[in-house]
């Protein structure tokens, strides 16, 4: 969906105003530290995947998404996932105390489990039977795709012509993964001239972006 999160090329959002690298703490307050940890810990319950987690943050009014700080959006996302998966209730969230028992049998990770999970990660590469449709050097156009679902084809490249720069192999396809369907698709790095993306070609810049095969058509 073209929500508040789909930010490439949007304007009026102000200066970047970076903190100096040497002065920036990892977290800017205690609650950021905690919601970061809570989000990862809750994710390790295995009730949702990374695309469902992203989609939970995206499904907000754009004004809320843009007004919230980064970790406020994490709070919104993890609450939505906990509620939608029936792990907590609205009443419990409001009161901060347990009023209903946990329904399902869940394996809650221990400190040792966490270490293992963080160190192993969750690879998304998949062996595919079908060969890739495109080869490096091929010209492709990104399909326009108006959807209420989750997609990783940003609005700013839809309809644009680019060139296949790399084939990354088969990877989990987010548009299906968000529905809980494990489906592999060929993933490509696709390169676009700034002329094709923004209409000006005199700044000597280009954008390379990872796109799955179903997003692309031969140009």
């Amino acid at each position: 969906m073209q929500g508040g999160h789909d930010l490439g090329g949007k304007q009026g959002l102000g200066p970047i105003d970076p903190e100096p690298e040497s002065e920036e703490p990892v977290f800017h307050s205690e609650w950021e530290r905690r919601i970061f940890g809570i989000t990862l810990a809750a994710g390790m319950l295995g009730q949702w995947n990374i695309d469902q987690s992203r989609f939970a943050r995206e499904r907000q009014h754009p004004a809320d998404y843009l007004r919230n700080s980064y970790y406020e959006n994490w709070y919104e996302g993890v609450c939505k996932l906990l509620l939608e998966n029936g792990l907590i209730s609205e009443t419990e969230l409001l009161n901060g105390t347990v009023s209903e028992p946990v329904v399902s049998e869940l394996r809650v990770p221990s400190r040792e489990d966490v270490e293992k999970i963080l160190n192993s990660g969750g690879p998304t590469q998949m062996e595919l039977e079908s060969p890739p449709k495109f080869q490096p050097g091929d010209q492709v156009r990104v399909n326009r795709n108006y959807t209420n679902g989750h997609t990783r084809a940003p609005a700013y490249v839809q309809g644009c012509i680019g060139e296949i720069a790399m084939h990354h192999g088969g990877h989990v396809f987010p548009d299906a993964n968000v529905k809980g369907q494990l489906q592999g698709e060929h993933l490509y790095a696709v390169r676009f001239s700034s002329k094709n993306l923004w209409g000006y070609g005199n700044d000597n810049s280009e954008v390379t972006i990872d796109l799955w095969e179903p997003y692309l058509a031969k140009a």
Partner: protein
Amino acid sequence: MSHDHDHTEPPSDIALRVKALESLLIEKGLVDPAALDEIIDNYEHRVGPRNGAHVVAKAWVDQDFKQRLLEDATGAVASLGYSGRQGEHLQVVENTPGLHNLVVCTLCSCYPWTVLGLPPAWYKSAPYRSRAVSEPRAVLEEFGTQLPQDVTIRVWDSTSEMRYLVLPIRPTGTEDWTEEQLQKLVTRNSMIGVELARVPGELESQPQGNN
């Protein structure tokens, strides 16, 4: 008329709501407090851009390693002991005199945690995410980085689980430096691509962060 869009000082409201959520999840047995602390401790104190600086400095002094790094970054980086979440599929992109790489995630905040730790606030902000793809030269200038017009800027928008790390150009005047010395020149920002690696003269004046 205008409102403040800087969220470094959040309302206490959110602090209270997060506290309530944490209590609830612990009381409900959904989160183990020790596991929670382990997660936070890992990313606050153990994983950070020093990992990436190690990778980069080694690539600067070791041609074989550099070759492996460019061909199979995930494997080469794992050989130095860095692997795990948000670093499952790494790609290293090399700066050259004619090409400068810059990494962004326009849709969220994808970032190579295993080598850089958690992203800085600006990387996750709407201004950076919106403009890095459409006006990268202006963005670089906001970081004080001015590149000649004939240098191509190549932006990498991290939409997939591939994670991109920039290999900056080794500064001149460091020909006889050791890997350990070189690491000090490799900033987090140079590995995202918003800055160049530091030059020897900058070492005294701009102290590096702890991470």
